[in-house]
């Protein structure tokens, strides 16, 4: 490991925040062009480091922490600057590094009102640091700090650049997640003190947790559960999501869908299961139950929507249900599927939000009733909508399928010690969910893309997909296709790590 490797992860995490600081002090607000370029260069630099990490990553040992750094940080509370990356975090880490530059490209000509590109991009870069940091943190306090760093920029993004009821939405988002975070922090502290741990490092706590009696473990896991479930979001903690998504500016929704929601599921995989495996086992049926309720419930919610963006937001609830179902089986197969589902959902739903944003830009409405005949008005966009919808409903050959089907499959035979019949019931319910998903997504496509344009748009001209949009979307589309055709790309990365993790945790 050369000296650059020592710094690689920290660089990738902190380049954005440095860039943000430079922008804050060195570039005047009026000079929008420089602001944009600075933001793009910063995020691309972080991405370049990320790609370096990806290239140097040893895929044969994806189960071990690589590029690890462990330096004293806050000694007085036994917290260390402990970061590292393995097969579970690598996909999510890369996803957050890829999404931000694309969002910046997309925003090139679409700074949402009330403008102020500088502040907008600074927030986006801060978000990037928070997200990337969360995925590499190996210390719970560090994790918590990054986890919370994400919160504030998002709050401002929704609150300032959002739509009509943005204040309500952003406050709800903030308070809701803060409520979860509080419980999460409480659980972290309980883990530390009840387990008599020597530090907040995850590996230490995993050992220390053995000292905790089972009943207490259950409670601590419950705290973690609520903290993460709010972020996922799982039924019934999901209600902040539709509002936040609907009100957020386009790139806010994209980042929210593509990365932020994954912080929760990632937390389950990274913290919940390895540290408290026994409690996770006891909670598994409940998580599975909420997951399948979420699947059906999210789908039903989608069917009732009249607003396209809100529909997509609700579909997230359903899709994250599949992810949680995969996690709740506690099998390598299911968790691999969950990670795949996280990446796939990030790409697909991100893409759908981009499309919704662009449609809104052109039509100034997302009310499904007023849309129609998109394929005639902007054919390419219509096709992309169709493709994304197909990917989202889990068509084999596109990315969505490999998160969905293996999750269903894994529910047939969950980990040892879990009730098979319960999970098999979940399996069937989840399979029904795939049909409902087909229902609401195709219905959406039918109403928005097919048919004749409504009379009110007569004589209007609508741009088809613009160059900046192509540039921002192409990686998403390529990702959807490539992962769909050759899922091994991702399973190859995660498989070893997940198997090792479960082996250590559940000892099989």
């Amino acid at each position, binding site marked *: 490991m050369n000296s650059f490797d020592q710094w690689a992860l920290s660089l990738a995490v902190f380049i954005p925040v440095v860039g943000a600081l430079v922008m804050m002090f060195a570039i005047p607000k009026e000079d929008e062009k420089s602001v944009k370029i600075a933001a793009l260069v910063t995020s691309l630099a972080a991405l370049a480091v990320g790609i370096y990490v990806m290239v140097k990553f040893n895929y044969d040992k994806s189960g071990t922490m690589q590029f690890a750094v462990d330096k004293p940080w806050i000694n007085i509370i036994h917290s260390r600057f402990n970061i590292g990356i393995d097969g579970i975090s690598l996909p999510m880490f890369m996803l957050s590094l890829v999404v931000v530059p694309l969002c910046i490209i997309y925003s090139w000509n679409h700074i949402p009102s009330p403008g102020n590109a500088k502040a907008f991009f600074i927030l986006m870069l801060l978000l990037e640091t928070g997200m990337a940091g969360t995925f590499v943190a190996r210390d719970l306090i560090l994790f918590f700090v990054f986890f919370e760093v994400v919160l504030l920029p998002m709050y401002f993004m929704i609150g300032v650049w959002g739509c009509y009821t943005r204040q309500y939405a952003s406050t709800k988002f903030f308070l809701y997640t803060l409520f979860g975070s509080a419980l999460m922090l409480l659980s972290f502290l309980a883990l530390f003190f009840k387990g008599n741990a020597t530090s907040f490092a995850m590996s230490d706590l995993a050992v220390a947790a053995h000292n905790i009696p089972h009943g207490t473990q259950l409670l601590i896991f419950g705290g973690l559960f609520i903290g993460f479930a709010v972020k996922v979001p799982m039924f019934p903690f999901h209600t902040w999501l539709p509002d936040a998504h609907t009100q957020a500016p386009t790139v806010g929704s994209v980042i929210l869908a593509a990365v932020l929601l994954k912080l929760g599921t990632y937390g389950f995989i990274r913290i919940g299961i390895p540290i408290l495996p026994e409690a996770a086992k006891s909670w598994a049926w409940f998580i599975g139950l909420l997951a399948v309720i979420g699947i059906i419930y999210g789908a039903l919610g*989608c069917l009732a929507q009249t607003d396209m963006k809100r529909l997509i937001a609700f579909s997230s609830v359903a899709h994250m249900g599949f992810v949680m179902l995969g996690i709740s089986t506690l099998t*390598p*197969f299911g968790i691999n599927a969950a990670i795949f589902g996280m990446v796939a959902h990030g790409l697909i739903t991100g893409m759908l939000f981009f499309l919704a944003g662009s449609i809104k830009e052109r039509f100034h409405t997302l009310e499904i009733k007023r849309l129609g005949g998109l394929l005639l008005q902007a054919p390419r966009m219509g096709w992309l909508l169709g493709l994304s919808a197909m990917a989202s409903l889990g068509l084999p050959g596109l990315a969505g399928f490999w998160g969905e089907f293996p999750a269903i499959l894994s529910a047939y*035979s969950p980990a040892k010690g879990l009730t098979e019949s319960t999970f098999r019931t979940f399996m069937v319910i989840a399979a029904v969910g795939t049909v409902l998903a087909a229902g609401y997504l195709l219905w959406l496509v039918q109403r928005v893309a097919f048919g004749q344009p409504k009379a009110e748009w007569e004589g209007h001209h609508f741009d088809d997909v613009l160059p900046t949009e192509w540039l921002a979307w192409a990686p998403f589309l390529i990702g959807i296709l490539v992962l769909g055709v050759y899922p091994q790309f991702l399973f190859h990365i995660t*498989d070893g790590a997940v*198997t090792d993790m479960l082996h250590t945790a559940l000892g099989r």
Partner: protein
Amino acid sequence: MLNHAWIIPLIPAVSFFLIIGLGKKMPMKGSEIGLVSIFTSLVLALITAVQWINHTNAAVTGGEAGASDGAAHEAIVKPVIKVFTWWQSGGVKFGWGSHIDGLAVALLVVVTIISSCVHVFSLEYLRGDRRYTHYFAALSLFTAGMLNLVVAENTIQLLLGWEIMGLCSFMLIGHWWEEEANSRAALKAFFTTRTGDIGLLVGISIVYFATKSFSIETINQTVTDGKVSHLVILMGAIALFIAVIGKSGQFPLHTWLPDAMAGPTPVSALIHAATMVVAGVYLVARLYPVFVSGFSIGTNVTIGGLNPMALIGGITIVIAAGLAFVQNDIKKVLAYSTVSQLGYMIMGLGVGAWTPAVFHIFTHAFFKALLFLGAGSIAHSGSHHSFDMKESMGGLRKYMPITFWTFIVGTLALSGIFPFAGFFSKDEILAFAGHHGYHSFMYIGLVGAFMTAAYMTRCVWLTFFGEYRGGHAAHDDHHTVALVAHDADVHADHHDAHAEPHESPWLITGPLILLAVLATVVGFLNAAPFKIEKFTEWVQPRIAFPEISVPDFSWLEAGESLAIAMAGILIAAALWSKDLGRLRGLTKRNKLAHAGYTFLWNKYYLDHLYEGIIVAGITGPIARGAYWINQKLIDGTVNGVGIGAREAGKWVYKNIDQKIVDGAVNGAGMAASETGGLLRGLQTGKVQQYGALLFGSSAIIGLIFVIVIK
């Protein structure tokens, strides 16, 4: 080629991307890419077939010459399998490759032939269509999906092809999506088959965990060896069968098939003859041991011979045939006949007639494609793009001789008249049903044969005989106008709406003639009456396959079914050709007949049930209810907590903050000012007073110190 058959589906798949990417810039708008790719696949498929036949023959003769030991040669004719690792997760490997055996080869040949014909036919039929390029891209992908399903090495790969076809059917049925009816039909097709796919997802999972494998070969072997508990395999079979019901248009999920007629006619031919709907039947044939073992086919005859497959197949035969009688749209007649014929296949598989059922897939593909393309030809050149037999056809045999004669061949083959292809396959299914003790199903099949012959005669009569009724009709029947609007506006530019009917150009008649020839001769591949069993020899698996006893051919039974079919034709011909005044209009006079007619006309009210009650229920009250729960209960709780918190805050603000805390602060202020007033009296400016106060207070403090500290 046997080892590399996985290339066959890849060719059209690549072609799909090429057409999407480059199609619009090509001189023929991308159709040439489609044609080249499908012909390449066809050639490769034929090479595969020849090699397979040689392989089989060599194995058979080698086995006989070598040891004259039955077991020796059976071990040799294994499926040829080639697998690449596709992905792996949690220690489970997933492959992608090809599993070539007789069944796969037969289907490869059928699919590529039909698809080639459809491609050629579409060149003319869709000339000038506004989405010509996309159409050919979708055709390519559709073919790729089906070929992938056919060569699938494992169930996941099979699922891939299965779903790709679902997507393509959506794209093609909704090809003219400007019309809401079309996009609704597309949605319905996708959604209905997707409903069935719940079964596929669950079924594949169950079978995987039962046999610890996705590989079709291993699954079949494990199940045949009887290593799996019957209950599990029964559950798996039921789940998979639900998928089959959805995909292959079996009762009660058959309703999407007739609506799928909204797509361009060549697509209907492709969907109904060779791809999509056949996929379900193919799945059963492919995993036959699972179904045989799950449903105890062939071993449960003693309890009345009921098994879900035979039952559903039997029901489908009759109800679909019944519906075919009341249709005025020629494509819908053919659609219901497809449903009915699929019923034969499923019933055949249900009664243990594996080879005849597969053979029926094989023969049916040719004559059904022929009939659909014939209908397309009529619409294209004879009836101004209308499919309404009563309003805009009639007497067309004079104008369109080639279409007429080829259509007749298709009709006879479909009705099971000797010596056309349908006779051999259908008759064998019935013979097997009788032989295996499923007598009731044999009779159902005979009834179906009678009905088939009758409704096809009606269809032919209305279309080709009598007086030409076209020309004026298309304008006064709104129903018809709505149905044909899409085709009409496609061709409006080069067809005069009032032109005389004429024969179609060779790009359309060519495929018709080819298919007519095939529909006539392919039956002789497995002609039981002449002891020709080539198809059985080539196709029937020799390993990992349940034992099936083969009935001896009986001229009596064959004659019986032939006579019934002939009777159907004659009675129907008599009914519709002669003006039998007493029967004509019976449905209007007789209440019972009228009720029956209405019942049929409304398709047994199944669509009402699905769309009016189930779909409307889910999208309407249930979804709204769930959303209501979301908004009012859950979000309401959240908001309620929020509002509650806010109200509590307000209350606290008003009562505690404002009155008590702030009161305290204010009070302190006020107290300060008041005591100030009070104290002002103290501030006399007199030194002695100050001194007194100073002393007094220090005395008090001192006292307190003394008391407290001691």
